[in-house]
């Protein structure tokens, strides 16, 4: 035999064909079943405490997640509040209250409630028919001028 291929062929061909005895089969299967039952039993005992531990962990994880969400939302809200520019206009108090820009800012801050509140304040200051503020002044800020 000169090359490895022939040696490999020889080894492959010489693979033994053996058969287990019935006694070995019976013994192995019996012992294996006992081992399986032992493992299953011990796993089911551990399983109860394991499940409880998992539930506790799960609950803790839920709380942590909820807290994290609250923190993120709050910080985002505060950040946005901080970023909202305080616009000071050179107009008199009446103009400031009724201009489109101030109405829009009110709406952005508090929605329709804030808008309503501002309307009421304006009404208190100006009265039902004010002639102190011109139309031009009222529409100041709507077209960027």
């Amino acid at each position, binding site marked *: 035999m000169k090359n490895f291929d022939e*040696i490999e062929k020889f080894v492959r061909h010489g693979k*033994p*064909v*053996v058969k287990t005895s019935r006694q070995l089969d019976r013994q192995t299967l019996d012992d294996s079943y006992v*081992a*399986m039952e032992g493992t299953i039993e011990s796993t089911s005992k551990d399983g109860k405490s394991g499940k409880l531990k998992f539930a506790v962990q799960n609950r803790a994880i839920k709380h942590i997640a909820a807290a994290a969400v609250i923190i993120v939302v709050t910080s985002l809200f505060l950040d946005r509040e901080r970023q909202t520019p305080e616009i000071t206009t050179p107009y008199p108090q009446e103009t400031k209250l009724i201009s489109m820009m101030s109405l829009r800012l009110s709406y952005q801050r508090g929605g329709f409630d804030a808008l309503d509140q501002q309307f009421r304040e304006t009404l208190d200051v100006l009265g039902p028919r004010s002639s102190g503020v011109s139309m031009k002044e009222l529409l100041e800020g709507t077209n960027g001028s």
Partner: protein
Amino acid sequence: MIEDKKLVWKFNRGSKDAFRRIYEKYKNELLGLAVTLLREKSIAEDVVHDVFVSFAGTVGAFNLSGTLKGYLSTCVANCARDRNRLKVGQNVTADFMPKAFIEAMDPVSDGPPEYAIDCEQSGRLMDLLALLPYEQREVIVLHLHQEMRFREIAEALGLSINTVQSRYRYGLEKLRTILNSTVEK
């Protein structure tokens, strides 16, 4: 392969029938491997027994990453190595005919003459393999008989692939030398 995965899945759920089917499927092959590595039927049977019992103990947590045959073959090889260490010092010569091995042979050949030839060839191979260091024998048998890849063997035995390949090469080289010297005689 898919059948094995299915059997392992059922076994992990505590199916004794699935375990029995795994045992039936691989018992003879693993016994052949153990006999080839250890050359003693009684010790080989102990190895197969121990491997299956410890495998049964992993029920519910057994995770099959490669092939089931590869996994079980590796278990047998590891167990056989431990047993082999215990009987180190036992002197084996090329004239030794493994009687226990012949007893374990299954007459699957076509007829008595073919069976005798198979037995003779297997017996001769066993004699030759016994002359190799255990590490080389192990790699050759796992690769050529159990059809495991070098990478699989390396991972299973915790060796580098280069070590496995060099053991294989040295083993075959030694076998060739022995066979050639036998032919010259």
